[in-house]
């Protein structure tokens, strides 16, 4: 029987990852709980007055989404590395940088997408003006996909290390900063009534660049980590 084509194999990998995620539904809830708890920290720290909260809301929501994405991006390849499946993936005839996209797609579906879907609730909690919520969800949708791709590079480079968890944040947080800049700027523009289009366009451009280049770095990173 001939090996499946790259895209067909990608879809099969995606279904496998989603099946694995669904088998542990509580683990899907972890990033959302983390998001809720950190958002709840800010009123305790900054004071409950709605005006101050509204002022900080775009930045707080985006930084929390970024941190919860960082929290989960370490585990993207780790479980497969520990039980030896990652080695088999490297030996598959299909191109590795396509298969890696399946892993990142599954990670985005189980974290980023849900984060964006849940974020309006937290936006209301932080008194974000209603007209900015649509911009928040749109920027989070594109932004978390971008964050997952960049986080995947860090995960691929540190998957072989015993104590890679802390290291991954040092490696990829500098690369998250441009995404944060334009993500929260989009929400702030919506709050101020300015057009949101250009910011989302820049985020989209970064996403295209990441989709093109990040898998190459991930594939190289995985081959190096497995070989170490």
């Amino acid at each position, binding site marked *: 029987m001939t090996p499946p084509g790259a895209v067909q194999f990608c879809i099969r990998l995606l279904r496998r990852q989603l099946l694995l995620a669904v088998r542990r539904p509580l683990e899907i809830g972890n990033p959302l709980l983390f998001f809720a708890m950190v958002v709840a920290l800010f009123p305790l720290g900054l004071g409950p007055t709605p005006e101050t909260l509204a002022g900080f809301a775009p930045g707080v929501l985006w930084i929390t989404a970024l941190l919860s994405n960082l929290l989960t991006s370490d585990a993207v390849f780790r479980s497969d590395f520990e039980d030896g499946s990652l080695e088999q993936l490297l030996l598959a005839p299909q191109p590795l940088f396509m298969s890696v996209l399946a892993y990142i797609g599954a990670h985005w579906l189980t974290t980023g997408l849900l984060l964006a879907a849940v974020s309006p609730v937290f936006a209301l909690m932080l008194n974000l003006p209603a007209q900015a919520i649509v911009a928040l969800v749109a920027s989070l949708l594109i932004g978390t996909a971008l964050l997952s791709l960049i986080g995947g590079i860090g995960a691929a480079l540190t998957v072989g290390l015993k104590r890679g968890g802390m*290291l991954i944040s040092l490696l990829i947080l*500098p690369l998250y900063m441009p995404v944060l800049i334009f993500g929260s700027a989009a929400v702030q523009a919506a709050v101020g009534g300015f057009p949101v289009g250009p910011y989302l366009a820049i985020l989209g451009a970064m996403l295209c660049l990441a989709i093109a280049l990040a898998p190459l770095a991930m594939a190289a990173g995985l081959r190096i980590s497995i070989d170490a």
Partner: protein
Amino acid sequence: MWPIFHKFGSPPWLYAIAGAILRWLLPITLLALVTGMVWGLLFTPSENVQGNSYRIIYIHVPAAVVALAGYYVMALAGAVSLIWRMKMADVAMKAAAPVGAALTFVALFTGAIWGKPTWGTWWVWDARITSMLILLFLYLGVVALYEAFDNKEAAGKACAVLSLVGMVNIPIIYKSVDWWYSLHQGASIKFTGETSIHPSMLYPLLLMIAAFYALFTCALLLNMRAELLQREQRTQWVQKLLSKDVVN
């Protein structure tokens, strides 16, 4: 492969060449640094707006320029070691990381201290300084990743990938920080930009930039010699080196 590339790749040849270059480049670099500093500190006129605090420009701008260039040198060395599997490029990358990090720290420290007399605060989130801070994080990321691997061969390859990813991201980071700064502050003066600088102040600056480039090269070569010895300690040429007891 071209024979010169291979010759360049052999450790003893590189060790000897680095030693030869250093013998004449190191004194010239130190001389240039001293003259540049003295010239900038004591002999150039003070600037009408900022008074004498602008003299910090003679170390801040060169350090910033060379720190950024150093990251590109590191990333390109990493690329060569990844693509052509050359051990020497891997050694060059490993040697460039700490030097670049040190120069970035110098640029950050002098930039921060320059902010105090001109803007009254120790840390100002100016576009240049913020980008420099992110560059320092990128350097520290590469150094930390290198230390995290036990197998040094894989560490070099992983750092090569990370520095290449960083190289692609640096223009994006610089542009987005500049844009972010102009969004919140309005396009105020870029106090580190030397647009309309008087020639008498410009020449020491150019000398200092050249001196810092030479300093980076010397530090890189020095680090490479130390790294080469450590990696090739079991080979004959290192033993031969020891028996000759040439410790220059």
